[in-house]
């Protein structure tokens, strides 16, 4: 792994740099949290509002959920950081199998 040890002569400078990076990352986390709250509010309002039909609301709120989960995975769970190739493989394999399961259950069972 490339990001392990402080490699300058002066650890003080290193730590200042790392704190700055860390604070910067926290700002992205706050932004993604705000967006997630916003998406949740939009989804609840879309359902609470009578003017939309189910044919619009259902795909719309599922789309909002998918966007929100992407924020959760890539920011809160750090999948945007390097060294997450294997986790991505595992997770997307799970998503693939899960999607096939959902498709099968929704199309085979019709009563």
């Amino acid at each position, binding site marked *: 792994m490339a*990001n392990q040890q402080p490699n300058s002569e002066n650890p003080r400078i290193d730590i200042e740099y*790392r704190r700055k990076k860390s604070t910067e990352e926290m700002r992205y986390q706050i932004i993604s949290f705000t967006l997630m*709250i916003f998406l949740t509010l939009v989804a*609840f309002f879309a*359902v609470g509002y009578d003017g939309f039909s*189910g044919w619009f609301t259902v795909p719309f709120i599922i789309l909002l959920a998918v966007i929100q989960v992407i924020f*959760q995975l890539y920011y809160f769970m750090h999948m945007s950081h390097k060294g997450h190739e294997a986790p991505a493989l595992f*997770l997307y394999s799970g998503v693939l199998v899960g999607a096939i*399961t*959902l498709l099968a259950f929704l199309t085979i069972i019709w009563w």
Partner: protein
Amino acid sequence: MQAEEKFTAETWPTAPERATLEGKNKFLGFWLFLGGETVLFASLFATYLALKDKVPNAEHTLAKDLFDLPLVFAATMLLLTSSLTSVYAMHHMKNFNFKKMQLWLGVTVLLGAAFLGLEIYEFNHYVHEYHHTFTSSAFGTAFYTLVGFHGGHVAFGLLWIVTLMIRNSKRGLNLYNAPKFYVASLYWHFIDVVWVFIFTVVYLMGMVG
């Protein structure tokens, strides 16, 4: 780097959760587990969607009349906020600030416990007001299995985080326990990922009809 080595904020590695071989293995193994959990929950979602509103007669309450949006909204906000507080905990873990990490983990646990309390109230309400039980209909079984499994995950996550906090309270941070805290926080985020789909697919879609 040795797991038992004493660190200072200056010598603490930038990715402490993956600085040792054990940490790397935990990280990889845990993500594999999360891939499996994805399949588990997807199959429960598939079952729920196939059996939604499948009740034996008209006396049974359907999703549309059962769910209460304000309660679900409150539960969602609690769990979403607890996800952010565990991000804060990991932020302090990476900055080698053990006390603040413990504090934010404590806040996470409180929010998670409040969520679980709301869910218990909700289930109790359905059973006693609507006679919507695990055995009353296929709809009931699918609903309680899916949402209850998630609630079980929340309960397990709370016990896990509390155990880690108590077990390491006098130890401070080192490369032995940093991966443990990190993996527990990943689990907590995953619980929130599942909840996002539960509130959308079960509750919101249930209200749409």
